[in-house]
């Protein structure tokens, strides 16, 4: 039911963990639904220099989290903001329809992290 790419990102997730010097943090979902995505970013000169994730959820939730970290590393914030949950699913060669809704939240978590970064910057 899952594409090769989903299984690859699930079995060998990229950029798992936390950043010591994160300046933007985003988290979406909740444990009751069975999916939580936590993304940390390190932004320098408007570019996402580093990104890490931690995810509680099914294979689709883990694979989309891993994929988005690959998609946005080195991208400007504006470019990263263009990425949607759909873009992530397409980059993984698609997700089963039932997963599109509940487990495809990585872009939301990333956008939250960028928002958090911008708020922190404005407060400086």
């Amino acid at each position, binding site marked *: 039911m*899952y594409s090769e790419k989903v*299984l690859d990102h*699930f079995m060998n997730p990229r950029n798992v963990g936390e950043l010591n010097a994160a300046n933007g943090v985003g988290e979406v979902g909740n*444990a009751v639904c*069975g999916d939580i995505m936590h993304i940390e970013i390190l932004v320098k000169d408007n570019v996402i220099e580093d990104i890490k994730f*931690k995810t509680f*959820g*099914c294979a689709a939730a883990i694979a989309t989290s891993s994929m988005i970290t690959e998609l946005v590393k080195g991208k400007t914030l504006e470019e990263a903001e263009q990425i949607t949950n759909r873009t992530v699913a397409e980059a993984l060669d698609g997700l089963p329809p039932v997963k599109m809704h509940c487990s495809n939240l990585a872009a939301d978590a990333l956008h939250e992290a960028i928002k958090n970064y911008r708020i922190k910057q404005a407060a400086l």
Partner: protein
Amino acid sequence: MREIYMDHSATTPVDEAVFEAMIPYYTHQYGNPSSIYSQGREARKGLEKARQQVAGLINAHPQEIFFTSGGTEADNQAVISYMISNAHRGRHLITSAVEHHAVLAACEYLHKNGFELTVLPVNQSGLVKPDVLKKALTPDTTLVTIMHANNEVGTIQPIKELAAIAHEAGAAFHTDAVQSVGKIPVDVDELGVDMLSASSHKLYGPKGVGCLFIKKGTKIGKYLHGGSQESKMRGGTENVPGIVGFGKAAELAQNRMSEHWAYLTRLGKKLQEGIREKIPHTIFTGDLANRIPGHVSVCFEFVEGESILLMLDSYGIMASSGSACTSGALEPSHVLLAMGIPHEIAHGSLRLTLGKDSREEDVDYVLEVLPEVVDRLRTMSPLSNQTKGEEANV
């Protein structure tokens, strides 16, 4: 790659002796049992022998065994046909919150069509308390249906006691025994049930065959309308090879019962204790004393069931989970929720069910792989962060 099948509550492989017994009924004795010529008579003989074999396994009379297409049809007939046939006496039925969907959905279907339904709660081990049933019975109750052993958590219900309470109140009692027949002694007389469902593929027989035991004198109509097969209780040409296979599987199960029971109880305990020892933050679900042998059901905190299954699969281990993702629904298992397990923990459920061909080294292999899998997923989980501090304090 190694293949370790640990999902025997989902289905079992067909025993070779069972398959051997079935073959002639596909190729040589292929007649319709309703035909009067020799081919038909041979098929009829096979059918009636199977009826005796299945009856023998559950201590019923052969005339009380009605073959069906499986457990689901048997459950549907017991619930729906019984309620319709007895609607003049009352329109209330009682079931439990942990039933298989074959029973629950049939009850809900009746409820939507004007019958009154009570779904009994269970305690934290998944048991229906006899007092709870007592209070739910009304003069209008005609049927109580409560499963013998639970498919997800393995809990065995006190059927004898529950059936006696139903009878005292004038209601009939049906039990879905799909998970218990062939694994533990099931005696319809001893249990005191009026109807009982069983399925062939859970006891090393073929898929697509089951039966409904209907105690002599029970008033119930047919479910599948058609010809006069199965003593006018089920229309449709009989699945002769399947039924013959079911019969053979029942006979083998009866002969090997005590041997398998002892073996699977020991192996299941080893698996359970190994998990307890090696994986912290694990919750064992179901009743640890009254359960199906070789049935291990757990919830691992901070991880999700589908992820566990897929990762186990990459090591060749096949198991199942009651997580939302694996059921295709948004909610995790209704059984775990009914037992009061919180959503976030129910998402991390895993069921490992051993069978007669499971080996000790299979259990050792699972005990080697599973802790690693859970640990890898926990490293990825934002929820397990919260426990690091707790553990440091211990």
